[in-house]
C-alpha cells in the first residue's frame, strides 16, 4: 500500500473545506443566575421563545419553560454539575425538536433523539417539534380499521382501532406492559407480503419508556429483538436516572415520531409506559419552577399535559393520506383506585380503557382483564365482520357468568339454565386465557372463539381447554390452512365457511373427548 502524500492530504482537505461558508455567527445569550435541581434561572435571553431549546456550557441543553419579568426559567436535559453561576447560555433559535425519519426504526434513543444503543448516529430526514398542536376536526375521519393486538380478550371484546386511544390501567405487576408488548409484537404480521395482499397496511411501533429501570428497558428491547419486532419499532427511553425534564418530554417525542409516520400516510402505534411517571416528573419540574401546586401537589395544567399528548393520536382524513396514530397509554393505579386524580383525568381523555385486576391475575386469569369495566368506545367499528359475529355473544356470556359466579358454590342445587350459563362462562374464561408473547393472528382467534361461543368447548374439562385450543389450531394449520386463509382474506364468516367450521370442530371435539377419556 502506497503512503498518502502530504499534498494529497491538503488537496482533499481543501476540497472538503471549499464549501464551508465563513459567516458571522449571531446568537443571543444570557447569564446563569441560579442553578440547581435541574432548573436554571437565566438573566438575559430577552427574546427567548417558550419551549425553546437553549444551550448551556459543556454541551448541556435546556428548555425554556418560565418567561418571567427579569429572568427566564429553564429546565436542563443533562447534568447540572458542571454549570456554574455566571455561565453563558446561548439561544439555539429553535423550539425543542426531535429528529424523525425511517432511520429511527430499530433504534433506541433518548427523548432528544440521541442514540443510546451504541450503534452510531441515526440517519434522519428532518426535525419535528416535540410540542405540536393536535389536528382539528376537519382533518380527521372516524376510526374504522382494526389494530389487532393478538390478544383474544382484547380483540374480541375491547377491540382497538387505528387512530384510537386506549388506556391500559391497573395496579403494579398486573400485566400492563405485557399487553402493550404483545400488541407491538403482533404488528410484525402487518409488514408481511400476505398482509399486503389482504389489504392490511403495515404498522410502525414506538415504545416510550418513562421512568423505568434501565434493566427493564433492556429486557424489553431484547424481547422485541427476539421476536423480530425491532425492525419496525423505535424505543424512546427516559429511564429513572434521566433528569425529570427528560422524563417529562419523552412521551411528546414519541408522539412527534408517530406523527411523522401518520402524516406520511402510514400507520403508527405508540405506547406510553407509563404516564403516571410522566405526571410525577412534570410535578417535580413545576414545583421547582415555583409554579403553584394544586391537588396532590400536581400543577394546575396536569390535565392539559395529558390531553394535548393524547389528542395527537388520530386517524387522518383520506385527503391527507389516511394515516393514523394509535396511542396505548399506561397508567398505574394504587390499590385499584381508579378514582384518583391522574387516573380519572386520563380515563376521561382516552377512548376507552383496559382494566387489569390483581385478584384475577393472582387467581391465574391472565391477561387479567376485567371485561365488565373495560370498554372500547370505538367497539365494533374496529373489528372485522368475522370477529364481530363470534365475539358478539362473548361479552354477554361473560357478563352473565360474572353475575352468577357467586352461585357456583351451590354446585348441582341450581336449575339447568343457570348451570349451563355457569359452564359456558367458566369455559369462556378458560379459553380467553393467553400466554405472554404469543399473540394470535385474527383468523385463529375467530376459530377459537367460534368454538367457545357455539358451545363446542362446554363439555371439555376445564383443565384441558388450553390443550384443546392448541390442538384445534394445530389441526386448522395442518389440514385446513385454506379455510384460515379464506377467513383472513374475506374478513368474514360466510355461511359456507361457518358450516365447514362447524363440521371440522365437531369432528375434532369428538376425537379430543375420546382421547381425554382414554
Amino acid at each position, binding site marked *: 500500500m502506497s503512503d498518502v502524500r502530504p499534498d494529497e492530504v491538503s488537496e482533499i482537505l481543501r476540497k*472538503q*473545506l471549499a*464549501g*464551508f461558508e*465563513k459567516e*458571522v*455567527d*449571531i*446568537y*443571543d*445569550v*444570557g447569564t446563569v*443566575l*441560579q442553578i440547581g435541581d435541574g432548573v436554571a*434561572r437565566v*438573566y*438575559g*435571553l*430577552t*427574546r427567548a421563545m417558550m419551549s425553546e431549546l437553549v444551550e448551556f456550557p459543556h454541551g448541556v441543553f435546556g428548555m425554556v419553560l418560565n418567561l418571567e419579568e*427579569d*429572568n427566564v426559567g429553564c429546565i436542563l436535559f443533562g447534568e447540572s454539575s458542571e454549570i456554574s453561576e455566571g455561565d453563558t447560555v*446561548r439561544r439555539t433559535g429553535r423550539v425543542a425538536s426531535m*429528529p424523525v425519519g425511517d432511520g429511527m426504526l430499530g433504534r433506541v434513543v433518548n427523548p432528544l433523539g440521541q442514540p443510546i444503543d451504541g450503534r452510531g448516529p441515526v440517519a434522519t430526514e428532518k*426535525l419535528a417539534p416535540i410540542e405540536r398542536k393536535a389536528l382539528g376536526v376537519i382533518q380527521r375521519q372516524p376510526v374504522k380499521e382494526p389494530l389487532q393486538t393478538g390478544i383474544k380478550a382484547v380483540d374480541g371484546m375491547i377491540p382497538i382501532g387505528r387512530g384510537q386511544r386506549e388506556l391500559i390501567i391497573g395496579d403494579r405487576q398486573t400485566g400492563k406492559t405485557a399487553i402493550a408488548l404483545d400488541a407491538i409484537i403482533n404488528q410484525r404480521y402487518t409488514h408481511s407480503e400476505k398482509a399486503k395482499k389482504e389489504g392490511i397496511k403495515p404498522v410502525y411501533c414506538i415504545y416510550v419508556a418513562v421512568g423505568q429501570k434501565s434493566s427493564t428497558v433492556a429486557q424489553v428491547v431484547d424481547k422485541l429483538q427476539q421476536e423480530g419486532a425491532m425492525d419496525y419499532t423505535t424505543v424512546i427511553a427516559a429511564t429513572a436516572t434521566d433528569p425529570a425534564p427528560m422524563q417529562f418530554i419523552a412521551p411528546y417525542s414519541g408522539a412527534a415520531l408517530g406523527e411523522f409516520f401518520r402524516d406520511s400516510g402510514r400507520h403508527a402505534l405508540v405506547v406510553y409506559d407509563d404516564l403516571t411517571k410522566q405526571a410525577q416528573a412534570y410535578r417535580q419540574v413545576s414545583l421547582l419552577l415555583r409554579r403553584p401546586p394544586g391537588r396532590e401537589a400536581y400543577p394546575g395544567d396536569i390535565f392539559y399535559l395529558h390531553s394535548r399528548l393524547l389528542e395527537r393520536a388520530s386517524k387522518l382524513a383520506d385527503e391527507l393520506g389516511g394515516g393514523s396514530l394509535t396511542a396505548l397509554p399506561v397508567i398505574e393505579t394504587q390499590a385499584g383506585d381508579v378514582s384518583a386524580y391522574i387516573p380519572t383525568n386520563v380515563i376521561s381523555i382516552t377512548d376507552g380503557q383496559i382494566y387489569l385486576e390483581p385478584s384475577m391475575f393472582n387467581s391465574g386469569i391472565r391477561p387479567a382483564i376485567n371485561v365488565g369495566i373495560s370498554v372500547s368506545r370505538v367497539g365494533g367499528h374496529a373489528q372485522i365482520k368475522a370477529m364481530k359475529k363470534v365475539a358478539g355473544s362473548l361479552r354477554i356470556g361473560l357478563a352473565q357468568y360474572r353475575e352468577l359466579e357467586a352461585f357456583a358454590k351451590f354446585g348441582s342445587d341450581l336449575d339447568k339454565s343457570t348451570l349451563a350459563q355457569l359452564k359456558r362462562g367458566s369455559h369462556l374464561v378458560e379459553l380467553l386465557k393467553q400466554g405472554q408473547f404469543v399473540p394470535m393472528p385474527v383468523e385463529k382467534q375467530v376459530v377459537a372463539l367460534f368454538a367457545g361461543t357455539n358451545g363446542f368447548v362446554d363439555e371439555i374439562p376445564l383443565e384441558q381447554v388450553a390443550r384443546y385450543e392448541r390442538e384445534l389450531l394445530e389441526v386448522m394449520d395442518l389440514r385446513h390452512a385454506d379455510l384460515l386463509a379464506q377467513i383472513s382474506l374475506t374478513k368474514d364468516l360466510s355461511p359456507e365457511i361457518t358450516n365447514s367450521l362447524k363440521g371440522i370442530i365437531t369432528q375434532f371435539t369428538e376425537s379430543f373427548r375420546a382421547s381425554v377419556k382414554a
Partner: protein
Amino acid sequence: MKNLQVARRYAQALMEMADAAHTIEDTARDLSSVAAALKASRELRLLAGSPVVRPARKEAIFRELFGKRVGKGTMDFLAFVIARQREVHLEEIAEHFALLRDAKTGVVGVDVVAAVALTAQQEQELSRALGRATGKSVRVKLSVDPAIRGGLVVRVGDTVLDASVRRQLELLKARFIAGGPSTN
C-alpha cells in the same frame, strides 16, 4: 441570586428624581464612584453587608466618606437606602441606574473582545460601524482575549455577533464530525 427586583425599584425611583432635577449625569457619576469604592474596599463591602451595625452608624460613616464627594440628591438617596436596610444592593442599584441612564440618553454599551489590541484608528472605525448598525450612540468597552484566535466578538445587550476565528473552527469541527453540512 442577584436581587434584580430590588435594584430595579430603587434605581427607577432615583432616575425619576434625577430626571426631574436634571441631574442624571451627575447622579450617574456619583453612583459609579460609590460602586467603585465598594468594589475596591473589602471593609466597606463588609460594612454595607453587615446586619449588626446599626443604620444610624452606617449612615454616619457613609456621610463622612461620600458627603463631600457626591451631590446632595445622591447623599440623601444613600441615606434612604441605608434607612431601608437595602445598602447591600448598592452595587446592583448603581449597575441598573447606569442601564437606565443609557436607555434614556440613547447610548448602548457594547462589549468587544479582540484577539489583539486594536489601533486607535481601528477603534474609531469600529465605533462608527457599531453606531451605524445599532442606530444609537455607542460606548465601546474593549478587551483582549487571545483565546478567540482572531476576529472579533461583539456583544450588544443580549445579542452576540461572533466573528471570531475560534467560532469558525468550532463550526468546522462540528461539520467534520457530522460528516457533511450540518443540518441540525
